[in-house]
């Protein structure tokens, strides 16, 4: 339902995505992992048309997002909820106003229904009595949960999570992980999680992809990643400095990472 076909994207002379191919199926929780600055957030932003590829296409449910503008793009965006890394709550609005914003702006509910949905969402997120609080007065974990509430309140089909557990303590990170799982089970939402938190990844993801040098180099299930002996995966999961990942400044672009046709290799099971 979300597909990247041979996508290239550069910022100035710095290539971020280079022959990027990916397919995410409806209903799954898909994690994209990779080193800091490798293009994970850029990938998410392409899905909602915040960025346009230099080459290639991004398709969501048959609509080529990469070429859409105006009302057509807005129709695709309404399928999505987006949890930004810092939450991106509007600081001039209270918690209640932030949560109710998409409902009010698009007249999706009357005031009574908005109040009811806000209360229910705060209950789901285990945040009670916070309606009138301003975002600046919330802790980091609370801000993330309110932002998640804003992302889900319109009952989207797809939720994008940009580093949902970064900056949180282990307990709060697990609260977010549990919320991601609960949302999938309760609302059958497709989730795309961008992260380098491997513990969270293995807990929430059905499938995982490793992004490196602008393309997906490995995909597989959570179990396959955990039991793999692939040197790239081993180095990334264990966080060791020795291994095939090298400093980008020293690296030459090699074609040995890609299989013919530019498609990622799949993980072989160790069974």
């Amino acid at each position, binding site marked *: 339902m979300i597909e990247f076909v041979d996508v290239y994207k550069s910022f100035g002379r710095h290539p971020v995505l280079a022959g990027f191919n990916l397919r995410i199926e409806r209903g799954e929780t898909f994690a994209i992992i990779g080193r800091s600055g490798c293009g994970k957030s850029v990938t998410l*932003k392409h899905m*909602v048309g*915040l960025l346009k590829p230099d080459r290639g296409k991004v398709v969501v449910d048959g609509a080529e997002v990469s070429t859409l503008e105006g009302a057509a793009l*807005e129709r695709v*965006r*309404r399928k*999505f909820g*987006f949890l*930004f*890394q*810092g939450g*991106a*709550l*509007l*600081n001039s609005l209270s918690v209640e106003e932030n949560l109710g*914003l*998409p409902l009010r*702006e*698009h007249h999706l509910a009357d005031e009574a229904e908005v109040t009811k949905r806000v209360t229910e969402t705060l209950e789901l997120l285990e945040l009670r009595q916070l309606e009138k609080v301003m975002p600046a007065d919330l802790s980091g974990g609370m801000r993330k949960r309110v932002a998640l509430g*804003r992302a889900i309140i319109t009952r989207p089909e797809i939720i994008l999570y940009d580093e949902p557990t970064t900056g949180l303590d282990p307990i709060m990170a697990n609260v977010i992980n549990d919320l991601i799982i609960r949302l999938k089970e309760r609302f059958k939402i497709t989730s795309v999680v961008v992260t380098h938190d491997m513990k969270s990844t293995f807990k929430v993801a059905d499938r995982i992809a490793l992004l490196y040098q602008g393309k997906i180099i490995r995909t597989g299930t959570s179990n396959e990643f955990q039991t793999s002996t692939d040197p790239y995966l081993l180095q990334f999961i264990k966080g060791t400095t020795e291994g095939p990942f090298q400093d980008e400044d020293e690296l030459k672009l090699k074609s040995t990472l890609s299989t013919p046709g530019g498609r990622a290799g799949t993980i072989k099971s160790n069974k």
Partner: protein
Amino acid sequence: MTALFAGLGYNLILLAETVRVISHLPRRWAAFIQQIETSAFGGFPVAMIVAIFSGMVLALQSGLALRNYRQEASIGGLVAATMCREMGPVMTGYILAGLIGSTMAAELGTMKVSEEIDALKVMSINPVSYLVLPRVVAMAIVGPLLTIYTDIVGIFGGGVVGKTVLNVDFSLYFRNAMNILDLKDIYSGLFKAVIFGITIALVGCSQGLRAENGAAGVGRATMQSVVTSFIAILIFDYLLTLFFYH
């Protein structure tokens, strides 16, 4: 030069988009009223001080020169016409650019670098409708309102100097002001104030919406909005003066 034309192009596109969504104003009423309050109440105290002293200096300088020709009684008309045509709208413009335009740039710039603008877009909320429109319309109204206030205070300040330094009675001063002042002096000045207000809001918003690289970028956007607004006021002032009086 490329950056200059790129900036000009961005501002023109932003203006076009703001005009396109003008029908959304009733939906943005609360934000619009809040912007009026912020701009007006923020500008009034500074405008009063700037206006009164500007009127006093204008009356003093011109009065002392006119005294050589025993024409100091004419300062009423001179101060009134100068304030209404030029000094009122231009000074008000500078005050609003420094106080309010910079605030707009900082506020929207902070929203940009913390991804709040992206969040609006993903929620299919047009940032121009939600953020820019109420600010532009508010400044189009506050500009001339504050200018009227500045004109009155400046003319009054000139009258105080006329009485205390130049021995020109208040009644003579204001009678001379009313005789000389033309309707055109007033409406040309207020029209300038509307244009300046719209420009300041557009420049502030456009700088903020293009801010990058965290706090440093927001600081740059804030500074750039003031500089660009000042230059734009000077250019528009000349062009509008040419239009009305040539």
